[in-house]
């Protein structure tokens, strides 16, 4: 097996991982192969020592707490589900307690899973025969790599062709979608009569860093992230990374900017009469909507006010009753229970009335203030909801 094929196969199996992680891993193996070749070994000999690519990938995935059984089996179908508890996060690292194996980790028992060369072990590879890896019919269960058969080659090439076709179709559909979106936006311009600049505040913010030569101004944060993620102590390497990232970002932004500028020029030419009609209709619709909302809110507020007044009235009656009960108690009548009930009722209805009136008063205060951004009707709705 050649180095390129080894790395491409390994990349396929590891495609569930983050791109950065994949590159990291593949770079290590590539460097290892190169060093072995410098010592006089051929490519095939250097790669043979790694054993089966599939089992190697399984070991690597296990380090990320990825269920390698499902991942590798799904990889053959071109689908990469991440199983629950896989621990995969944005950093591509699986967390575990600093124990021996961590959550979901198979333990050192898998490390030698049939990967040793048969002449070294003197027996069929033990770990490779674990149920999980051989469940989906690996041909490398014995730990040594068999030459690819015609059928295997046919299947592999068919799969590659299918994946390429699907990717092409996806790209085509995305292109069509973009064009349709642009056409719809162009058709809608006469009725809105507005430019597009205000529609993309996020792009405007990004423009701030866009330089004339197309390069993004970049940021220290990018440099820091690159440095931290890669643990690069060499400033030149970090700067190269940042430059690549910045050029990519800058080119993307410049394309976006050009696209929006072109749309704006077209839309301004179509404003005028149709734009005025459209704006009028929108305003009339908004006015009708406001009227409806005002009516609803008025009814709601009136109902709430009446409820508060009712509660206040009941509270007053309770207060009168409590007062009378106190007098009778002092005269020796056994009205303790009635007194307590009256007091409880007074407190309850008094609180309800206070809550309702409190909201009214707060509403008034905030209106006078004018400092609150939210309208009071919205606050009222939220509180009553």
């Amino acid at each position, binding site marked *: 097996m050649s180095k390129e094929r080894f790395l491409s196969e390994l990349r396929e199996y590891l495609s569930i991982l983050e791109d950065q992680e994949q590159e*990291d*891993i593949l*770079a*290590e*193996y590539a*460097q*290892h192969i*190169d*060093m*072995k070749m*410098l010592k006089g070994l051929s490519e095939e000999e250097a790669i043979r*020592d*790694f*054993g089966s690519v599939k089992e*190697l990938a399984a*070991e*690597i995935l*296990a*380090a*990320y707490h990825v269920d390698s059984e499902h991942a590798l089996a799904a990889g053959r179908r071109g689908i990469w589900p991440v199983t629950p508890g896989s621990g995969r996060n944005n950093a591509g*690292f*699986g*967390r*575990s307690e*600093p124990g*021996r194996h*961590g959550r979901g*980790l198979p333990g*050192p*028992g898998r*490390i*030698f899973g049939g*990967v*040793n*060369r048969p002449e*070294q*072990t003197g027996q069929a590879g*033990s770990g490779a025969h674990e149920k999980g890896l051989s469940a989906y019919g690996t041909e490398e269960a014995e730990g040594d790599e068999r030459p690819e058969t015609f059928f295997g080659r046919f299947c592999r090439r068919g799969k590659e062709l299918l994946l390429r076709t699907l990717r092409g179709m996806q790209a085509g559909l995305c292109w069509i979608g973009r064009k349709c979106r642009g056409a719809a936006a162009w058709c809608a311009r006469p009725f809105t009569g507005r430019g597009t600049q205000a529609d993309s505040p996020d792009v405007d913010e990004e423009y701030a860093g866009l330089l004339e030569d197309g390069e993004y101004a970049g940021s220290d944060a990018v440099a820091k992230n690159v440095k931290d993620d*890669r*643990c*690069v*102590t*060499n400033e030149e*390497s970090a700067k190269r990374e940042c430059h690549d990232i910045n050029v990519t970002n800058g080119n993307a932004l410049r394309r976006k900017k050009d696209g929006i500028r072109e749309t704006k020029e077209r839309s301004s030419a179509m404003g005028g009469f149709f734009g005025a009609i459209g704006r009028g209709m929108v305003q009339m619709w908004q006015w009708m909507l406001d009227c409806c909302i005002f009516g609803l809110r008025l009814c709601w507020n009136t109902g709430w006010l009446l409820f508060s007044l009712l509660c206040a009235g009941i509270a007053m009656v309770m207060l009168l009753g409590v007062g009378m009960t106190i007098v009778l108690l002092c005269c020796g009548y056994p009205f303790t229970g009635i007194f307590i009930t009256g007091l409880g009722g007074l407190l309850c209805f008094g609180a309800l009335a206070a809550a309702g009136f409190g909201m009214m008063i707060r509403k008034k205060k905030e209106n006078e203030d004018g400092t609150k951004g939210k309208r009071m009707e919205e606050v009222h709705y939220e509180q009553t909801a």
Partner: protein
Amino acid sequence: MNPQFKKGVLELIVLESVRRKDMYGYELVEEVSEVIDVNEGTIYPLLKRLTNERYFETYLRESSEGPPRKYYHLTAAGILYLERLAAEWEEFQARVNAFVRGGGG
């Protein structure tokens, strides 16, 4: 040698090697191969796992012989883990030896 034996001690050997000196992958493979005969491809997943578990940290160092090399350095957590592992190993091999030589458990 029985691969099951190697399975158990590979981690300990790798940790101890890195504790003595920061190493890059190939160098570590060579160092470990001097102690036990191991499949080279299995070292990197082990290094990755130990790095993910924060026992190792990595950094790049320029090399005159090619692209920058990724060196592995044992963290404080790694040192503690190594010490625990070494202690377990000492106890384990002492008990096994005692049993095999007929001294009982």
